[in-house]
């Protein structure tokens, strides 16, 4: 009798199936399309108000691979790593419940884990027992964790004419541009590894180029730190990174160091983060006037 396909007329499909769709009863009861057997009846599944699992990984190619009801969520959270099978963040329960707690169900091995979902301000958790760790470590989340732990320092702008009161450069003469503080945290490379749950991720970050926005609409893109100006160079142009202004004025110069952080893992997963770190200063440019008396 329950075998009949229940009419779905008028039943709006609101959402995704619950995690219990695989219940034994499902083999006997056929629910209308868009509904699931929840163990006792066919029910629609209500859409959760909003995603709240945190944001994905920082605007890069290494986007989060974790989703909840079609929404991309952070794979790692204070509640542990996302477990797609249970649709929740999982981490070992701390402290572990006492051995006489019903959750152990007679087991003396394994451990108790906490499954937590926090969506739209609502948090719900429960315990479950597992013989071995169900905490699936997401390499992308580890990579994000490494990136977040690294220091990326803005470039100290080296520029001639100098960025100080009373210093005025001449229109048409070469402007030299360089990074005054080249180092691992400013231009890279810097590398770091992290291991969790048997997954090891190594991330290497370096600046691939520096984009100099000159304030007059012009842009100079340079590779490397550039060449610091010395008086001996006179009016020569920089051999590595320079610019020429066409008009007098006070300009805001921004040095944007473009980082590429590539990561690989022992699982075969890999990815790239691209991001930039910027710093600015101001310079004045004037025109030389020839005065004849």
């Amino acid at each position, binding site marked *: *009798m*329950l075998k009949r396909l*229940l*009419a*779905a007329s*008028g*039943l709006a499909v*609101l959402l995704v199936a*619950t*995690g*219990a769709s*695989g*219940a*034994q*009863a499902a*083999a*006997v*009861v056929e*629910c*209308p399309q868009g*509904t699931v*057997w*929840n*163990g*006792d*009846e*066919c*029910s*629609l*599944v*209500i*859409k*959760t*108000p909003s995603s709240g699992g945190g944001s994905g990984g920082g605007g890069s190619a290494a986007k989060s691979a974790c989703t909840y009801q079609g929404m991309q969520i952070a794979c790692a959270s204070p509640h542990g790593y996302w477990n797609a099978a*249970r*649709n*929740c963040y999982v981490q070992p329960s701390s402290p572990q419940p006492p051995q006489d*707690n*019903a*959750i*152990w*169900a*007679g087991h003396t091995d394994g451990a108790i884990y906490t*499954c937590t*979902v926090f*969506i*739209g301000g*609502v948090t*719900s*958790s*429960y*315990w*479950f027992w597992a013989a071995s760790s169900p905490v699936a470590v997401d390499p992308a989340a580890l990579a994000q964790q490494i990136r977040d732990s690294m220091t990326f320092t803005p470039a100290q702008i080296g520029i001639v004419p100098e960025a100080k009161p009373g210093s005025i450069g001449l229109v048409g003469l070469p402007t030299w541009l360089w990074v005054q503080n080249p180092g691992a945290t400013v231009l890279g490379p810097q590398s770091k590894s992290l291991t969790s749950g048997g997954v090891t991720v190594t991330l290497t970050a370096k600046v691939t180029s520096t984009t100099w926005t000159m304030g007059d609409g012009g842009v100079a893109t340079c590779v490397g730190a550039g060449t610091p100006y010395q008086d001996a160079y006179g009016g020569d142009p920089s051999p590595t990174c320079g610019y020429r202004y066409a008009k007098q004025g006070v300009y805001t110069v921004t040095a944007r160091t473009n980082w590429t952080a590539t990561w690989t893992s022992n699982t075969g997963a890999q990815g790239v983060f691209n991001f930039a770190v910027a710093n600015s200063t101001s310079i004045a440019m004037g025109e030389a006037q020839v005065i004849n008396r």
Partner: protein
Amino acid sequence: MTRFHAKAAIPAAVALLVLAGCAGGPVASPTPTATTPSATATPTSTFNDEQQQAVAAVTRFYEVLDQVATDYEVSLNALHEVAAGDLVDQRLQTYQQYRVAGVRQTGRTKVGEVSSVTGGAGAFEVTVCVDRSDVDLLDPEGKSIIAADSPRRVVHQFGIREVGGSLRAVQDEAISTC
């Protein structure tokens, strides 16, 4: 004709308890009041003490299920007291999603006629009519999420096992209407 109706010779005492749960059964009996708790199945002399305990485990299962579904203050972990294995995992996941989505249950489950209890020594199969006709599942806007044509009185066959020193439901299969 459901399995429930096919059971012909049901002792009067059994019939009474059955009708408390599955209203509309073949034998007239007092109707339960609205305040009747989940548990209504009372083992009878048909079953030995062990088997009666197995039936009681089904009743407890629905009592706790009703509690966690109606009162978010009740920890989902309470389900571990009455269920284990895949069954508790399934129900935990379902009711966690309900809570996150703001779905609340109204009404109580009635555990009705016990069709059969087999097994012993800590491993039983209990076949029982579960009446959810007074139960509704409401979304945050108060709309029912139960399919209009969903069966509401269903014969469940429960696997009851002694787990960690207590009888718990470990399997649940819906097999017919009642």
